[in-house]
């Protein structure tokens, strides 16, 4: 299925949960937050949240940056 991940279309296996997706992408779940179709997915809901075709996901974390700067990473 195709989902939109951090603004880019991405092909992932059907029926993935958020937990599986993070594993698939090799992303450590600590220090990340996930937004699914503009709603935050709590960490304790990662396991039970199954993704569907066309879902839009944001996966964010903390990056270098001070005061209105976008540097590093």
């Amino acid at each position: 299925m195709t989902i939109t991940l951090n603004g880019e279309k991405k092909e992932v296996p059907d029926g993935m949960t958020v937990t599986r997706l993070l594993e698939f992408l090799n992303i450590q779940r600590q220090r990340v937050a996930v937004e699914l179709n503009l709603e935050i997915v709590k960490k304790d809901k990662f396991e039970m949240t199954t993704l569907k075709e066309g879902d839009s996901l944001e996966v964010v974390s903390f990056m270098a940056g001070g005061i209105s700067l976008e540097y590093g990473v």
Partner: protein
Amino acid sequence: MIDDKLVIAGIEFQSRLWVGTGKYKDFAETKRAIEASGTDVVTVSVRRVNIIDRSKENLLDYLDPKIYKILPNTAGCYTARDAIRTAMLAAEAGITKLVKLEVIGDDKTLFPDNEATLEAAKVLVKEGLIVLPYTTDDPIMAKKLVDVGCSAVMPLAAPIGSGLGIRNPYNIRIIMETVKVPIIVDAGVGTASDVAFAMEIGCDAVLLNTAIAGAKDPIAMAEAMKYGVLGGRLAYKAGRIPKKLYASASSPLEGMIGS
């Protein structure tokens, strides 16, 4: 200075110098500058995880969470909606309920959009976050932000990255008299004397980034900032002499020869 800790919403801070993490050459330099500054508060932005290249290091791997408090910011947000989303994601990522709220109004000056900041602050306080908003040096705005529940106010000294220092110390003083929360000067300081001055007039802390990261020798400047804060804070606590127009002799006049 032992009992001179800064406390915001029940959280104790060791240092009155807070630093940003942008604009450094690499993470190793960032870490060395942070260590030299003596800070325990480091502000970071919230950004999309790099999906394509997972080999890249993360800044947080360089910073010991036992030493440093991570202060997520909403840098780069231009609307209340984006700032709220970003702050809520930061809180969900799970390090802290603290957030430095920034809603930028214009990319030339990077002045805050105060109206949007207030709107976002209201929502985020209701959501249980500890909101520290970046604002102009406007006492009325500071009062409004505190009235909606902000735990500190972060007025700018001057435009972000400008290095001009506190351009309106009188407004900063009025802000300190107007609101009863800590005042953290945020943005626009250039060098150690700017930081010392902010502390001397009674500000509770200073947050800076470019002044260190952009210096020719960031590590040395970080150390200079540390002493600037310490010197300024001590001078404030010591209570300076009043300014006078005329001289007053510091040596006794009694016992002069020829008298």
